[in-house]
Structures are given as C-alpha cells and as structure tokens.
C-alpha cells in the first residue's frame, strides 16, 4: 500500500465514523440554522482529527501536507453528505487569500484558526448586479476617508454572506483609469455598520446567495490586501486557487447508476426502459462522458503526485458535466411520467432528479458560465483571439453604461 493509499484508507475510516453524528440521516429535518450549527461541530471534528487545512502551513493550524492528500480526503468526504457546504467558499478562497496577502500576521493567524474550526465564516464579495461575467466592470467604490476608506455600493451572488463574519472584497478606487487598473482588494467585517445582507431566493426555492449593500462602510487601510489599483491581480489569483478541487463528473447531480436503476424499474411500451435504444443511448453517452472526465481527473492526480502540473483539460469538467446533468435530469422526469410530479424542494440534487433538474441552471452559471468557460478554453488553451471588447483600455468612467 502506498503512503497515499494508507492516507486514503484512514480518511475513509474516519469519514465513516462520522456518519452517525453528521451524515444524511442526522441532518434530516433540520432547519438551516440547526444544520449550520451541526456543520460547525463537524468542522471542529475535522480540525481535531487533522483533516482541516490539510495542505496549509502548520504554523497557521494546517497539516502541511500536499494538495493530493487534500483532494484524496475530499473524495472520501464527498461520499457522505456531511454539513460542510457552509465552509466551502470560506476555506476555499477568501481564507487562503488572507493567508497569502494579509499584512497583520497575528490577525491572520487568529482568523485562520477560527475559520478552520468552523467558528468563523468568510465570504467573497466579487460579483455585482451590472457585472455578470465581466468582473473588472464592477462599480462598488472605495474612497479615501482620513487614513482609511469608505465603501459604497452593492455586491450580489455572495454565497453564505448571511452567516459570514468577514468577507474579501474588490472595489473600484480609481474610476479614471482603464477598468482593470482601478481596482483594490480589501477584507471587511461583515458585522460592521453600514453592511446589509439580503438573501436571494433562487429558482429551486433555496437562498444561500445574497445581495450585500455597503452604505458608507468605513475601514482602515490595514484592511487592504493589494496595492491600491492592484486588486485585479489578487482577485484573479483567488479565482485560480484550487483549480483541481475535487471535481465531480456527475456535475453535482445524481450518479448515473441511479438513472440505470430507474431505467430498470420503469417500463416503456410495456418493457423495461433499459431495453429501449433511446435510454440505452443516453446511458452509454453519459457514461462515456463521465468516464472521460474521471480519467482526466485521475491523470491529474497522478501528475500532481509526480510533482507535475496537470494539463488544462481539467477545465472541461464543469462545462460538460453540468450541461449533461441538466438534460439527463429532464430525461429522468420524462421516464417517470406523471410519477415525476411530486416534488420536495428540500431534496438533494444528488439523489433527486427533479431537484437536480431545477438547480442545474445555477450550476451552469455560478463560478463561470458555459460561455465564459468556452471562451477561456478557446483563448487560454487554444490561443484563439479574444472577443471584441469595446471597453478595452477606455477609462472606466468613460465607458457608456
């Protein structure tokens, strides 16, 4: 058994031992607040067991191991449905950025330890109502205010802001230069006066994302995490962190075996649907696509293990997996006919076809829409030209709204 295999086996055992306290059955029927409280306890248990901050520095409370150990643990963890969703963004992006760019190291250490133990949650305040895929087009502004800054504006799609203690934010500090150049990166206290969080209800009924309003929110200059005007680079770094997070070829929808089971169970024209060529074709095509993604992902892990940088094909997972999940979920409803009508809006997208179907569009948009991903592949991997961008190089305050 390799070291990694030993590590995986231990992680598997630990995860299984957590099921009674934190697994699906333990979470059933809990309200969001109760589930969050359970989640904090789970995160503390992870920390105590050495599974929080696996690849983070030991002096900041991490384990000092590699990325490969981290995603190995996550692959095991993913099997159980623990209440860890509240910490995904927090520990995935803002806190690592704080570790990298935060200037007051004592403050940084305190925050990182609390975040790792589930006591504090961080959110990431990037998107804006006018922005969409155009991050650099943001309008929230910070003006100098004494020795500090004063923030005014609005962010949107901020996951878990309603439960967050802190956030990282990109704001415009100079509207007179080209849009990429006038941005600065800060952290903010989400409980500070002038910060208002308003949850957004999504199409499927849930509300984990928020609008966040800033109304004369004052921060001191030690909240700054980039040079003035140098925020875009830090924001991009944030987005590049964790490129090979544990991917999922099912697009965070149900496993294909659930579709196979359904197709064996229901009948089309009086015969099991699994015998119908249309269904067989969908199963075969979806399996093939997912098997390809799994294989890409396994190769990436092997490369990381060998100290190499994985290829750019890892970018495909989100694009093809979620898009396919959407259509496969529709098909699963078709297969059930009128039996598909009964609907539980709290069901998990991982094992309920209607829930998977209704939440799939969010997956195709959040964290880079299909179109943005295609542009990224075309431009960064294949070297094709950028789209026409009339705003390129134009001072921000001269771009027509």
């Amino acid at each position, binding site marked *: 058994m390799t070291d990694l295999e030993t590590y995986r086996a231990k992680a598997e055992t630990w995860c299984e031992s957590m099921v009674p306290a934190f697994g699906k059955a333990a979470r059933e029927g809990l309200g969001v607040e109760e589930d969050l409280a359970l989640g904090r306890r789970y995160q503390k248990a992870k920390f105590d067991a050495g599974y929080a901050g696996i690849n983070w520095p030991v002096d900041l409370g991490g384990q000092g191991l590699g990325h490969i150990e981290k995603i190995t643990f996550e692959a095991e963890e993913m099997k159980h449905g623990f209440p860890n969703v509240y910490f995904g963004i927090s520990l995935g992006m803002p806190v690592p950025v704080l570790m990298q760019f935060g200037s007051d190291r004592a403050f940084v250490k305190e925050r990182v330890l609390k975040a790792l133990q589930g006591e504090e949650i961080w959110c990431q305040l990037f998107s804006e109502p006018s922005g969409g*895929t155009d991050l650099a087009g943001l309008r929230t502004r910070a003006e100098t205010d004494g020795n500090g800054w004063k923030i005014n504006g609005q962010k949107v799609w901020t996951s878990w802001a309603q439960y967050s203690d802190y956030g990282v934010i990109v704001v415009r500090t100079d509207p007179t230069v080209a849009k990429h150049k006038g941005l600065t990166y800060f952290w903010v206290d989400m409980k500070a006066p002038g910060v208002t969080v308003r949850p957004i*209800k999504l199409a499927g009924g849930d509300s984990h994302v928020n609008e966040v309003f800033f109304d004369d929110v004052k921060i001191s200059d030690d909240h700054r995490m980039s040079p003035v005007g140098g925020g875009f680079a830090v924001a991009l770094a944030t987005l590049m962190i964790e490129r090979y997070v544990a991917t999922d070829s099912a697009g965070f929808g149900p496993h294909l075996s659930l579709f196979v089971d359904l197709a064996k169970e229901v009948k*089309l024209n009086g015969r099991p649907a699994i015998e119908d060529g249309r269904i067989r074709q969908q199963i075969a095509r979806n399996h093939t696509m997912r098997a390809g993604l799994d294989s890409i992902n396994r190769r990436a892990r092997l490369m990381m293990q060998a100290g190499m940088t994985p290829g750019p094909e890892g970018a495909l997972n989100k694009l093809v997996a979620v898009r396919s999940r959407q259509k496969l979920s529709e098909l699963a409803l078709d297969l059930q*006919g009128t039996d598909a009508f009964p609907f539980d809006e709290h069901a998990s997208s991982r094992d309920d076809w209607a829930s998977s179907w209704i939440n799939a569009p969010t997956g195709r948009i959040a964290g880079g829409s299909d*179109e943005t991903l295609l542009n990224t592949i075309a431009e960064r991997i294949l070297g094709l030209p950028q789209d026409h*961008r009339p705003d390129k190089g134009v001072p921000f305050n001269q*771009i027509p709204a």
Partner: protein
Amino acid sequence: MSILYDEGQQAIATESRRALEARVSKDDLLPLLQDSGKYHDGFWTTAKEQGWTALALPEAHGGLDLGLVELGLIAHQAGRSLSGAPFLTSSFGAAKAIELYGSDEQKARWLPGLASGETIGAIAFATGPDPLPATPSVALDGGRVDGTAAGVSGGLFADVAIVFAREDSAPALAIVDLGGAKRKAIGSFDNSRCIADLIFAGVPAETLVSGEAARAAALHILALQAVVTAHEQTGGAEALMEIARDYALTRKAFGQPIGAFQSIKHRIAELYGLVELARANAIHAAAREGQDDFITAAAAARLSATEAYDTAARDCVQIHGGIGVTWEIGLHLHMRRARTLALEQGSSFFWEDVLVDRLAGEGA
C-alpha cells in the same frame, strides 16, 4: 394543407392576448408555486367570461362550434402568459370524450357545464410513465370504479373525470362523477396545475367505450389535448425567445450588448427556428382535426413543441446568467411549466412511438 388564420381567428388571438396580459402576471403566479391547491382565479374567470371554455364544443350543448384552430390560438396566448390553471385543456379533453363517445343523455348532463366552465373536467388515463397503460390502474366493474389514478392534472378541482380503466382484461373509457372520489393533492414543481391522485373506492361510473376501441378513443382524446398543449408550449417558447432577445439587447458586458456575442445571438436565432417549426406543426395539426393523418400531425406538433419549450427554458435562463436563476425574475415559472407540459399527455418517448408506428406502418 396548412391554414392561414382568417380575420376572426386573428381577432381571437389579439383579444385573448390582451385579456391575459391584463389579468395574469408573474407576481400572481409566483406565490401559487408554494401552495398546492391553488390556481389563478383571474385566469379561469377570464377563460369563462371570454367563452374560451365553450369555444370548441358543439352549439347544441352550449358551445360555440369552433374548433382546434381557435382553441389553439387561445392556448398559445395562455402559454405566453403562463396561464394559471390546467382546466382549459383538461376540460376540453373530457368534453370531447363525452361529445364523441357519449350518449345523448351524457352529453346533456355534462357538456353545458363544461362549456360554461362551471364544470371542470379531467383526464385520468396514465399510470406513471405510461400514458395509455396495457393494464390501467383503475378497475371498472359493474358500474363502479376502484383504484387510484395518480398525478391527474386539474384533478384537485375537477367535477368529472374520463378514466382509462380495465374492465375484465379489456380496456374501457368511463365517465366518473368525482363527487364520490377521494383526492390527494400532490405538491408538484408547478403547483397551479392542481395535480391530485384520484382515489376510487366503488365510485359509480358510466362506460363510454368498451374493449379495444377504448384504446383508440383514448389516443384520439390525448391527441386532441396534445394539439392544444402544443400551442400552449409554442406560446411559452415564443415568450421566452422574446424575453431572451429583449434581455440580450439591453444587458451589456464588456462594453456591448450581450446580443452582439454570437454565442448569445445564434442561440436566440436557433430558438426562433424551434419556435417557428413548432408553430407550423401546431397550426397544421389543428387544421387536420378529423382527417386520417390527424394523429400523425398531432404527434409531430407535440414533439416539436416540447423540444421548443424545454430548449427555450434552458437557453433563456442561461442567457440571463445569475439573474436568470432567481426566484423573483420568474423564468423558473416557464422552466417548471415546460416540464409539466412535457409530461402531461405523455412524454416525448410516447409520441415518438405513436409517430413512428404510423410512419413505418403507412410507409411514411
């Protein structure tokens, strides 16, 4: 031969659109999603007031003696504005079954109410994935029905249902007065469809058609409803295409309207294609009522309308980006309706088979 709408028909389209746009709004419809057991009263009142319920029924029984073409026009507008109840289609199906296969007495009893809209009808043919099951889940015996008809759209408020039942080992179509039935409301992803399980325990029923003829009759009723639904789906898809177009014209990214990006503009152009094909097939099918190839035309209309509406729902949301998946903007009302209409009267699998049986049998 496909038809051109005449002036009277064009007036129906204009007038129904005006009435629905005035009466039905997204703000009324969103709350309905969160309760099972409610429908949009304004929609149904309008339908009754405007005589839409009477449109395609015989004059002798309170109808207006128009046909599928005219009802299709109404359904198209109902699809555009998302209507707020399924009764237009479900009552029409029930009424046509009684008109085509019922006795004079049965017609006299039910049709006037269905025409005025005071009586609501429902169709209970399906068992899960099978719109016309080999062995229906409801048994008809000695003038009574037993068993459960699951997932019946409109079933929660219907007064009368046409039930596809088994009678000994043969199929049968029966009229059931739902006064004697139990109903279990189904919380669905599109609650204003008023879906219910109808539970029969010795409920009195009258036979409409017995034996194998019942299967052909049931398919004919489904096809009539399918053409109405195809119009409704086309209307929904058209509305989404226009919403996407309008958004692409106003929303900007990187300094230009997103409609200038080919990934957006070509997708909307493809939606235009799907909508126009669906419209053409729906109009054609409506005009073929009573002809030999009606079932074939209805299947084609149903298939292209389902594809158009599902695709438009997917693409319109995607084009909107983040805002598209919010509850408030309500695009999910169309997403939900698209899926519901895709399932009512049988999924695309069913209609593909219906179509190919005919194309292969008749040598295309």
